[in-house]
């Protein structure tokens, strides 16, 4: 048995970490938070040049042809530094969807560009407030074009293509839309985490092609989101670990009552509990990574497990990182709020915590009772 990454994968992690230390310091995240850009284009191109975007894309489609374990390693590092780039939208969701269900033409058209950093994708499923569910989809696909609105869409403002869940007749289908086509309107939405842009996309008879069969949209979307949940789980894990480190470091530096505040049990125990939640999340994410890389039958359960656990950990560590910092943690100048923002934004993307909690138990009770042990 080996529930760990290989030495080569650990080397990749070190390499990506070094690259991000140089190219994505907190100041770069802050520049997106405070500036006019929707993402860090230079960093994104750097990741493409490093081969990170195409890590899990086969070489025949312009990728590097490594695998999903390598992508998990990369995701954790991106999460650690809150990289303000559209990797989740483009790679975990966009490229994964095309690789899982796209036609040869669709793959040829977009995967090489994704790998090269020349095309950004977005995952256009949501239509307004409330839990994501099939009955809420109103946007239509008539076989050639889509019409209707989607919001909120992460990276919708900057995307080159969108994967859109649409009503086709009485059923749901997934469509691929080139956003340079006609009838596309974009509206930027303010959000709790401006380091990752949100937008509303409106389509008016915009040309689109179906991904997979008619009526298969929800099924494919679910499969893709399961795979993405594990990768986003790794981003959350990276964020949780970094928030824990920030809290620990501050507890060592900050003095009160003549002592390092980390010597007080009230503070020490907060940090110990952060370590516990991050450790549980790490173990559950490794289980997810195994399932993702081996396309195991347990993948749906492993995905929900990793996702729930990683969401718990990142929210828990980010909020308590502020608590350990005290008043300084609530200043704009300290980076704690960047992690707090991202932890709460990631908790909602591709289905909120309660959605995944429900999925986990639904899947466990649907037959695999063994998984409970």
């Amino acid at each position, binding site marked *: 048995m080996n529930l760990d990454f290989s030495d080569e994968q650990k080397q990749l992690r070190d390499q990506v970490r070094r690259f991000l230390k140089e190219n994505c310091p907190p100041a770069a995240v802050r520049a997106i938070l405070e500036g006019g850009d929707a993402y860090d284009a230079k960093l994104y191109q750097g990741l493409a040049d490093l081969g990170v975007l195409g890590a899990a894309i086969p070489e025949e489609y312009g990728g590097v042809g490594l695998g999903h374990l390598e992508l998990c390693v990369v995701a954790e590092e991106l999460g650690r530094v809150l990289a303000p780039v559209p990797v989740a939208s483009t790679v975990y969701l966009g490229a994964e969807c095309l690789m899982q269900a796209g036609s040869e033409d669709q793959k040829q058209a977009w995967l090489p560009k994704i790998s090269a950093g020349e095309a950004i994708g977005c995952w256009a499923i949501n239509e307004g407030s409330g839990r994501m569910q099939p009955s809420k989809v109103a946007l239509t696909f008539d076989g050639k074009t889509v019409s209707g609105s989607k919001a909120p869409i992460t990276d919708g403002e900057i995307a080159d293509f969108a994967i859109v869940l649409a009503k086709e007749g009485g059923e749901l289908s997934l469509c691929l839309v080139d956003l340079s086509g006609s009838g596309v309107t974009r509206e930027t939405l303010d959000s709790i985490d401006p380091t990752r842009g949100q937008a509303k996309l409106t389509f008016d008879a915009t040309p689109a092609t179906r991904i997979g069969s008619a009526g298969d949209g929800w099924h494919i979307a679910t499969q893709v989101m399961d795979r993405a949940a594990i990768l986003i789980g790794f981003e959350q894990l990276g964020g949780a670990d970094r928030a824990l480190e920030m809290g620990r470091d501050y507890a060592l530096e900050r003095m009160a009552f003549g002592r390092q505040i980390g010597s007080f049990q009230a503070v020490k125990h907060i*940090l110990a*509990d952060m370590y*516990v939640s991050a*450790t549980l999340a790490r173990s559950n994410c490794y289980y997810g990574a195994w399932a993702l890389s081996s396309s195991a039958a347990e993948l749906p359960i492993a995905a929900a497990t990793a996702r729930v656990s990683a969401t718990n950990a990142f929210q828990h560590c980010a909020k308590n990182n502020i608590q350990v910092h005290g008043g300084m943690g609530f200043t704009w100048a300290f980076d704690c709020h960047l992690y707090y923002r991202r932890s709460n934004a990631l908790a909602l993307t591709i289905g909120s915590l309660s959605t995944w909690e429900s999925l986990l138990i639904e899947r*466990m*009770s649907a037959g695999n*009772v063994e998984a409970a042990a």
Partner: protein
Amino acid sequence: MDFNDTPQEAEFRKEVRSWLDANAPKHLEPELKRASFGSNGLESEDPIKASKAWQKKKAEAGWACLHWPKEYGGGARSAMERVIWSQEEGPYAVLSGLFTIGHGMCGPTVMEWANEEWKEKLLPPLASGEEVWCQLFSEPASGSDLAGLRTKAVKADDGSGDWIINGQKIWTSGAQNSDWGLLITRTDPDVPKHKGLTMFFLRMDSPGVKVVPIRQANGASGFNEVYFDDVRIPDDQRLGDVGQGWKVSLTTLMNERLSIGSGMSTGFPELFKFCMDMEIDGEAATADSGVRSKLAQFAVKQSGLKYTGMRAISALSKGETPGPENSIGKLVAGATMQELAMYALDLQGEAGVVWNEDSPQNGRFQAMLMRSPATRIEGGSDEILRNIIGERVLGLPGDIRVDKDVPFKEIPTSGKAKA
């Protein structure tokens, strides 16, 4: 990443399986599978005799104390082989509960600190289950602050070199079934508390030793008080130097946390089964969104512990030392079990208050509710474990210890509540 055995591991697993298949006490299996907390669940046979018989059989075939060297009755197996053995032993492992403290804590301490003669005399019968050991550490006034213990050992004034012991221990698991005890005492009250301790071992049938079972909050009696009234111990039953007891005790405690933390139950599989079998408004409880949220949170703790254990095993199998991750085991399992028991009773509605043979799963959740407070205290309380994680894993500074350099006899022993 994979969950498969290496060819050698698979070979070993096969060997274990076939031996167990031919030798395990299969007639006890149904009873052992029902085992709940603090007992091995046996009614058809004497639980002590059944435990000793199984241990002896294992010892004769070389399957006892797999982590010990062969010369002391152990199996000298690798860490990975131990893991495979415990996975395969399954329900029969419950029978080893009687020996957990002896094999996991007292034995390793004797192995590190006793002379060769004693090791050869004490360890083989401990390994084979012929002799049972208990650990005489906690006292009424020293639990988390173990080094504050007050049981006194003084040199006999007859020139024999023997020690005379007076005092009281508490929370001693299995003292009533034990042949030997590992005893920590205070030999010098004039120096700071950690410096005046000395470790001994003694026969539990020594004159002046009295074992009194404690009636616990859950009504059961797994723990004991042990009283010492002028008990005489020869000097050659001392482990380590006079005044070195604290250092000796660290060997024991390190082993305690390793053995207690691994593979602990949270009760989740039982709760999940209960919810699968139960209906709310004509639908399975597992279809209810409130139930799902609660169950999911328990589920990810259960699986988080399971895969944390597997990560530790992975490190072992590569010959690495597992990291500190395992220190979270008991902390998470204990608190989860308590919350989970409360939720299982909540789902039973007002009937949750009833605790008898008609209660769901024979009253397992009521038993968990009543036992779980102890899990959060024994073998290092939740708070001590958080200190350990904070200080040894995260590198935070220790608390300020006001009694550190004070002679033991000058440390205050009682406070006063405000009127």
